[in-house]
């Protein structure tokens, strides 16, 4: 069953086209990694799927229903979101930020109750930041802030999570925790994950774990490659899109499982890449 289907979507900012004819499906229990150069339109595409921006053409179908036909509450129960950058405002406590994820489940004019707080604390634990619970979130480090926003999305308990570079400020351990948490959610709870990332190894990680993961490579204003990580993240395709030389290795990971990963080795030349 497809949780997200995008059909020939196109979008422009003030007349400048960002992408056109985007098509993909994300099935239940699947992971789609959105991958592509800076400024290729990943965030913009996610904004379109979230309803924050509206595609010029094409349609977006969430769980079998046209996006525009959902109420705001309904859609928030379907999709949780981790933004690329979060602009901090008032010095709220961390737990109060995280419990905001419960909003779509509250009756219109009520505040979160005890159960919501328990779910929020659980989310904090999943993100590995229980100790930050009562801190003011405006006084956290960059990575800590990102984990708070991640925990908020986890508390939203939605069948789809859209994440925009969720690991950009995370340390080695938290990055791995994030990947494991996501993998766990997909395996156990059958969640669907749409994640934009700059690290192809995230896609390999999921593939190495045997999860149904696909990679959509955005470039030249469209999705130019789409397929399994093994198919898309290849040395040639990387060279074509990013104009750099890479190497894909296969090694033995934990418990002697096979694991694949890619490493950059140098720029092919300093000319322009696929982006404009």
């Amino acid at each position, binding site marked *: 069953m497809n949780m997200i289907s995008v059909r020939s979507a196109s979008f422009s900012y003030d007349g400048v086209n960002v992408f056109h004819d985007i098509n993909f499906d994300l099935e239940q229990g699947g992971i789609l990694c959105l991958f592509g150069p800076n400024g290729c339109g990943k965030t913009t595409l996610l904004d379109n799927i979230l309803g924050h921006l509206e595609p010029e053409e094409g349609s977006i179908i969430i769980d079998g229903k046209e996006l525009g036909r959902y109420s705001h509450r309904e859609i928030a129960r379907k999709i*949780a979101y981790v933004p690329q950058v979060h*602009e901090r*405002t*008032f*010095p709220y406590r961390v737990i109060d930020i995280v419990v905001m994820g419960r909003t779509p489940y509250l009756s219109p004019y009520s*505040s979160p109750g005890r159960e919501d707080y328990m779910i929020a604390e659980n989310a904090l634990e999943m993100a590995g930041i229980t100790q930050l619970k009562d801190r003011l979130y405006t006084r956290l480090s960059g990575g800590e802030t990102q984990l708070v926003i991640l925990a908020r999305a986890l508390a939203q308990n939605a069948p789809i999570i859209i994440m925009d570079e969720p690991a950009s400020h995370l340390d080695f351990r938290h990055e791995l925790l994030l990947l494991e948490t996501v993998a766990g959610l997909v395996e156990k709870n059958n969640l669907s994950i749409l994640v934009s990332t700059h690290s192809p190894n995230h896609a390999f990680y999921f593939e190495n774990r045997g999860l149904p993961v696909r990679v959509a490579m955005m470039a030249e204003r469209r999705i130019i490659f789409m397929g399994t990580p093994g198919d898309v993240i290849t040395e040639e395709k990387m060279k074509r899109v990013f104009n750099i030389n890479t190497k894909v290795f296969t090694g033995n990971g934990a418990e002697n499982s096979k694991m694949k990963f890619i490493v950059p080795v140098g720029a092919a030349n300093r000319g322009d890449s696929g982006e404009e």
Partner: protein
Amino acid sequence: MKFKRIILALALVFAPFACIVLSAFLGRYPLSPVEIFHAIVNRLSGVAPDVGTNIVWEIRLPRAILGSMVGASLAVSGAALQGLFRNPLVSSGMLGVSAGAGFGAALAIVLFHNTFMIYLFAFLFGILAVALSYMIGRIYDTAPVIMLVLGGVIVSSIFSALLSLIKYIADPYVELPSIVFWLMGSLSSASYKSILISSIPVFIGLAGLMLMRWRINVLSMGDREARSMGLNINLDRAVVIICTTLATAGAVCVSGIIGWVGLVIPHMGRIIAGNDNRILIPVSMSLGACFLVIIDNLGRIITGGEIPLSILTAIIGGPFFVYLLKKTKGGGW
């Protein structure tokens, strides 16, 4: 935790009542506590009223009640708009309601010289001003917050200018002093009638903001995130704006323009109770109510004359706020 919250809730409700009851004992007319006690009993038991009864029931209590309503409205509206606009410098009058109400009142003073019409015009023009700001804010859909605030600034300044125009052509002997006095804000016209008139919009507005207080938290995360957490941001933003407008217009139309409360009381609330609007909104409500009643009591007893409220709020509240800031080292910012 639960217990502490009940205590807090009780304290927040109790404090304004205590201030109101206290007000019954304060004033220029010398009444002993016993007389005041009699006055209260007399009225309740239907004995024919004497001066004391009148003073307590017709002067002191209505005034304190109105003061608490006005203070609560301005403070809560300010807190809510700060959250909505993610800008701690926003105050209850941001979207033009005070300027609009001032213009409406001046117009009514010049045209009718009738208290009820002053209330009505102040209220209606306050709402009109916000509606205009909102329309300007919608000019450019993708940046509504800054556009709304700029819209409010423009509309405020246009109404202020129109108000100046009325002041300028008003009869300097008859109308100008009334307008100036109205603009300075006063609770001296408090009566059960004015309480009744303002209570309808004030209660709708305050109740709405109490109900929306969680959503204001979420709205303060910014449009994109608030939306992803299930808010209908345009609707919810409009509801918050309507509620603050009703509360502020309802208050301002009977009390005149009382500055300061709608900006600084929310900040006192932030310093005392933190930024979570679930707590901040009720705390601001209670704080605003107590503050204005106390200030008005001071104004009533310091001299036999009437000192306009805006004067005392700033002169007494200002240094207190600086003290709070200093004590909390900036209070979380």
